[in-house]
């Protein structure tokens, strides 16, 4: 080996901006057959839908077109409401380049029916947040919704 470069402290191993050497190709994604309908309901009606497998007694959120357990096609769509409970959470203090964030942000895994949505939590101090706490989705005004997960601004305590 001709070059010896050793990092002994993890903190020295930092994210850097690739700048002008960024790759000349990107990916564009589709929401899919289930996603198309799921996000249309959020955008147009402010509703969150799951899809239910009758034989496995599971309601998937976000809705899917098939049950991963028994492989049946899921035809039954269920309005699961806009409330859930905090299944787990984390508090983010630093940006990816290692600088302190202006204010810490709270990321929650919200249990709705048998599924999870990952999102932000707002209106709750870091000291007060608890696993099991009931929360509710706060949507953007209808005119601003684009048919994506960001149509939900954040979850907030009930």
């Amino acid at each position, binding site marked *: 080996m001709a070059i010896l470069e050793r990092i002994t402290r993890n903190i020295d191993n930092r994210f850097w901006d690739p700048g002008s050497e960024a790759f000349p190709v990107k990916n564009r994604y*589709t*929401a*899919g057959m289930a996603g*198309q309908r799921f996000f249309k309901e959020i955008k147009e009606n402010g509703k969150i839908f799951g899809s239910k497998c009758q034989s496995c007694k599971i309601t998937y959120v976000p809705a899917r077109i098939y049950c991963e357990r*028994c*492989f049946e096609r899921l035809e039954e769509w269920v309005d699961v409401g806009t409330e859930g409970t905090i299944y787990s959470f984390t508090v983010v203090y630093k940006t990816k380049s290692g600088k302190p964030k202006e204010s810490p942000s709270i990321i929650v895994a919200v249990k709705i029916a048998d599924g999870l949505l990952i999102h932000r939590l707002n209106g709750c101090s870091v000291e007060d947040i608890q696993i099991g706490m009931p929360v509710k989705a706060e949507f953007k005004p209808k005119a601003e919704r684009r048919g994506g997960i960001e149509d939900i601004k954040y979850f907030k305590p009930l």
Partner: protein
Amino acid sequence: MRKVAIVGAGMTKFVRRALETPKELAYEATKTALDSCDLRLEDIDCVAHGSAPDAFDGIHQKGEYLADGCGGWNKPTMRVYVGGGTGVHAIIHGWHHIASGMFDTCLVVCEEKMSSAMPHAQGFFLTIFDAITERSLHPNLLWIFALEMNRYMQRYGYTKEDMALVAVNNKRNGLKNPASQFKDEVTVEDVLNSEIMAYPVSRLDVSPVSDGAAAIVLAAEPVARRLTDKPIWIEGVGWTLDTAYWGTRDLYYPRYLDKAARMAYEMAGIREPAKQINIAEPYDPFGYKALHHMEGLQLSPRGKTVELLRDGHFALDGNLPMCPSGGLLGVGNPIAAAGTMKVCELFWQLRGEAGERQVPGNPRLGVAQAWGDLMQVSSVVVVGN
């Protein structure tokens, strides 16, 4: 080793741009394959799935992402990846699972969604080239094919018109395939008049960018006999690779395939492949590649393949039909799924279920092959009824 049979097959249509997510595409193919042999997911012991570069679908660790769409939830699941060779290699991978005695049933599923790459999937290939000696020239895959095609033509005195015959043959077959993404017949003039991408490769010499998935169900002998009266046996498998250094490779003869084919034939007890094989599904991402691969598969004498093609030897009603499915040129090329599609086609052909494109005369033996990685790997599967 135990005998392994294909008992079911299914695929999506191949399309330019699918609304379905990669998982949903995989599900549609897998579900169709299961339904085709009246099996439920609980009857499946393990999953062997395949997909080419993660970058195409734009999801790193695509194998893990795809797993549940392939029926892999809570089952032993393993992804195989050898670039373009993946679609046939995944079947060898699934064959191992059952031949070894570990499992009685296995789902083999391959998926690719190339339309997500913007502006074009070719961009993702930049980093397969040598970073020091080649990359600054901004190479792309067409360069490799152009260099090979030119060398092949020069070696045997072939013309661009000779090479165009393959696209015409395969695209004509593809018109009879309900999964094909094309609807128009193509003539030699059309191919010759299509724009030159990188000489001597013209646009219609090239298979398209596609989205799609294909799946088969494998079973051990006693299970297969219980499930169906018409099991299609995997008689032989083979895979090898040539050097990744272009300069030490024959660009006009696919040595990466020669040994893989011989390995598969030996296992299948085939001594004279050109006489014994009834249907060939050589890998055809470009017209000349099908000819290359017919020679590597020992199905055609080197330098005589164009003559045989002109004589109708490889037509649907010829002695050795080539790409009755339509191949990548005639159906579409969602990379990994395209290779598996070739084995699906052999399954339907050998069971007499290929409809309008059925090869006459009760074909008994078929061979499918795919090619990939740094353009130097090949996988071969021989199947029989």
